[in-house]
């Protein structure tokens, strides 16, 4: 217990200092110096500063205990305010710890990051974000649309009023109102299974799809009424806004890191050398892999430098030739992508026109999904082959490949949707079935349900493809590589987990879900289950079948790219949503909006039923008297934030310059001291053990020397 019994603190410190000076081994515990003479500054901040200061001191433990004792003796009795702020701080720290504990899949993702690096880990973090987003969306939809519908379906009939706007004239439109989704009562079992896969049959007229919901306003008693169509519309709109909000918040967090670190581009080599090693790695295998990674990354960086130098030294003729080649190859890539789009459009039109039963019918229904998946495999593969001819440096190649893949995926989905919509609204001019009902009644008795089914099929097919690739490609590949010692097979090697294609797959799936959410309210739930299963499957395949990528994927700047691409998907889905809500006439035979002229028109009608004050308030908000000042205020806020950002940037640059100047100061002072020592040296006797080396000569200088600029700087230099 001798640490706690009192030697005088100052004498201990002095003896330590003397011990440091006289030892032959240069002092290696030099660290930011703790100022024993400091007194606590007022009662307010002290409670917060001291534990932090203590934790941050790089001293051995027994020294920290002494410091702590000194502080405990010095602080006046903590006031109530200090105690409360301390308690609050502890509470926040505990809450943050508890929240970190509850984070989904925390350990698994940590393990993945340890074995495979930040790039692969960022994929799984992105997947987790999407799972949570989809689950929360499902809760939203369930709470406001699904559960009320279930409740009201079980209520007696006379409590619900059919919501029919008085402006519609439905004479002559009786044929449009026929909707018969129920098949015959007796079905063969495998048809039941086919129905599950394609969303028809028993699934079509169920809570799964739009067509089942009623356009009723339920009045339970005088005070409570629930307008289901309005709830449906507002819930879906709010769901989209909620997703946008989540994406922007996450993007803000990720962007903050990227901006602060300069996008990872600056200081590449020193970052790699000093922060490249993961001290949490265990096991010889992981260590060797990490060493290989670091070596490969450094070699790639050096190679890039060499290529850049070479590119600068090309003659004019060679440059022109290179650019012509690149332009030609880009044309080929564009042609490939356009070919894929044409194929998708043709497949969609064909599939919509021909309906058959049984397995053939199922294949026909899945034809658009099949074509999209095939093109998503084949076209990027061909583009990669072409990219090797283009002779860019490695990072540009990766970025180009990513851009092309993003373009292919999102625009192919857009082509599919456009084809579907033009079929529904008869814009391709070939069908004349749009006349009475203002949508293509011949093909679609309930077009919203049909769209919902298409999105459901796309989701399901994407899921089945992922699982099939896992089982049929990755596991066999590993078994072949492990058991066969053929040179060629060993050269091909195990599967590598490529992050960009996987992330694009997630973005594509999420965009499909967003597009389908209006027409298939349970799709977020389906997607949550799908993503959870995909998480576990990908984790299993990662650990069993994959080798760590030799090319390490830089995770900081690419995280922003993932969220940007997700945002593009959101924009595509919301365009579709707005167009469907505002332009196309809802089906007469099904759904909550059956007799409205458009889905959006529910809102103005419900508006009339609001109390007068609410109406006035909402009118005021929508009017120019409110929106123009709001717009001006937003502009002012934007300018303020931009000015703040630029000021911070400038102050960072100023501080960096100051840091350089301080360094120069230090060198100047060190030189001065050396000269002084040289002048003093001939006058003094030959030294004892005190002044053996250069460093120790400086250490004997009086800390209160007038040359010293500031104590912390001094201690860095002279300890």
């Amino acid at each position, binding site marked *: 217990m001798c640490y706690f019994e009192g030697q005088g603190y100052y004498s201990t410190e002095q003896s330590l200092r003397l011990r440091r000076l006289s030892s032959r081994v240069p002092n290696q515990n030099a660290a*930011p110096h703790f100022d024993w003479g400091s007194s606590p500054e007022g009662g307010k901040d002290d409670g917060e500063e001291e534990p932090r200061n203590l934790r941050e001191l790089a001293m051995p433990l027994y020294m920290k205990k002494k410091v702590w004792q000194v502080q405990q003796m010095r602080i006046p009795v903590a006031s109530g305010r200090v105690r409360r702020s301390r308690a609050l701080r502890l509470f926040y720290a505990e809450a943050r710890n508890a929240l970190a504990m509850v984070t989904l899949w925390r350990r698994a993702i940590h393990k993945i990051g340890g074995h495979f690096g930040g790039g692969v880990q960022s994929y799984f973090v992105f997947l987790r974000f999407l799972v949570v987003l989809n689950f929360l969306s499902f809760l939203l939809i369930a709470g406001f649309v699904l559960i009320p519908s279930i409740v009201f379906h079980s209520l007696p009939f006379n409590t619900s009023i059919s919501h029919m706007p008085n402006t519609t004239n439905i004479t002559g439109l009786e044929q449009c109102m026929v909707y018969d989704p129920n098949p015959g009562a007796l079905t063969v079992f495998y048809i039941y299974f086919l129905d599950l896969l394609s969303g028809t049959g028993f699934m079509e007229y169920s809570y799964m799809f739009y067509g089942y919901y009623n356009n009723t306003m339920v009045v339970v008693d005088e005070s409570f009424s629930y307008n289901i169509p309005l709830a449906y519309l507002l819930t879906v709109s709010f769901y989209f806004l909620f997703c946008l909000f989540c994406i922007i918040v996450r993007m803000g967090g990720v962007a903050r890191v990227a901006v602060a670190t300069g996008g990872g581009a600056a200081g590449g080599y020193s*970052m790699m*050398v*000093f922060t490249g090693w993961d001290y949490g790695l265990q096991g010889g295998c992981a260590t060797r892999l990490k*060493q290989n990674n670091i*070596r490969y990354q*450094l070699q790639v960086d*050096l190679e890039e430098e060499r290529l850049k130098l070479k590119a600068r030294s090309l003659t004019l003729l060679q440059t022109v030739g290179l650019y012509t080649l690149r332009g030609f190859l880009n044309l080929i890539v564009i042609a490939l992508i356009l070919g894929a789009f044409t194929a998708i459009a043709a497949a969609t039109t064909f599939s919509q026109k021909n309906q058959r039963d049984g397995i053939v019918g199922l294949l026909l229904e899945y034809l658009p999904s099949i074509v999209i998946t095939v093109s998503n495999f084949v076209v990027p593969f061909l583009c990669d082959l072409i990219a090797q001819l283009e002779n860019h440096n490695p990072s540009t190649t990766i970025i180009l490949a990513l851009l092309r893949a993003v373009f292919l995926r999102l625009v192919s989905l857009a082509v599919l949707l456009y084809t579907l919509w033009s079929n529904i609204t008869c814009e391709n001019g070939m069908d004349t079935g749009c006349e009475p009902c203002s949508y293509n009644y011949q093909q679609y008795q309930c077009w919203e349900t049909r769209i919902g089914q298409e999105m459901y099929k796309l989701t399901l097919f994407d899921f089945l493809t992922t699982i099939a690739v896992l089982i049929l490609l990755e596991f066999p590949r590993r078994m072949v590589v492990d058991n066969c010692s053929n040179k060629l097979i060993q050269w091909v090697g195990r599967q590598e987990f490529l992050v960009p294609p996987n992330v694009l797959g997630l973005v594509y799936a999420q965009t499909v879900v967003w597009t389908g959410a209006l027409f298939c309210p349970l799709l977020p739930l389906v997607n949550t289950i799908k993503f959870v299963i995909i998480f576990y499957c990908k984790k299993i395949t990662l650990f069993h079948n994959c080798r760590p990528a030799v090319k390490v994927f830089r995770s900081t700047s690419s995280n922003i790219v993932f969220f940007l691409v997700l945002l593009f998907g959101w924009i595509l889905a919301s365009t579709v949503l707005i167009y469907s809500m505002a332009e196309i006439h809802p089906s007469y035979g099904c759904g909550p909006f059956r007799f409205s002229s458009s889905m959006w028109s529910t809102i103005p009608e419900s508006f009339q039923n609001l109390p007068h004050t609410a109406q006035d308030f909402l009118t005021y908000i929508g009017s120019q008297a409110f929106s123009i000042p709001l717009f001006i205020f937003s502009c002012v806020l934007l300018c303020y934030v931009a000015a703040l950002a630029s000021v911070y940037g400038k102050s960072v640059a100023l501080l960096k310059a100051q840091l350089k100047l301080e*360094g120069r100061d230090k060198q100047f002072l060190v030189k001065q001291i050396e000269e002084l020592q040289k002048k003093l040296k001939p006058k003094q006797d030959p030294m004892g053990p005190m002044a053996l080396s250069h460093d120790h000569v400086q250490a004997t200088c009086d800390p209160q020397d007038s040359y010293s600029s500031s104590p912390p700087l001094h201690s860095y230099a002279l300890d």
Partner: protein
Amino acid sequence: MYNSYCAIHAMLTCIILSCPVCVCCSRRLHGRYHELAPHLVPMDYTRNPDVKVPLSLIVNMPELKENPFRNRIVEAFSEDGLGNLSFNDFVDMFSVLSETAPRELKAIYAFKIYDFNVDNFICKEDLEKTLNKLTKEELTQEEVDLVCGKTIEESDLDGDNKLSFADFENMISRAPEFLR
């Protein structure tokens, strides 16, 4: 036998370090420390024995065994600079290496680890040794020279061709793993 001395020691550690090492972890750490050298480390710390476990036994711990910097890590936390750790130093090492240690502390010790010749500067030789440990000496000498040159060029602010702690901390503070 885990006695009252250790309990108080652990509690104080806990308070001082604000729980990167808590009471139960301290007990486990003592167990680990004991099993490194059972004949050397007593279970009973009441008499406050001055016991130090030598470097060669500590670097065989599974957490450190494969780490290329294991020798430097242990040396940085030892008082005599030769790698012999007392129990306090042992606890220190694990508390700094834990996830919850503040990043400034980690930066200080990282600097010490990479400073092979212990002169409070990371000079070109230190960098070469670091790089060789990182890549298992598989880079050519020319590549090593290039990378070291570029590293110093990127981080050296005061122009003395070596990295002081200020340069190192400035560069490290931009690393994304250090931004919490």
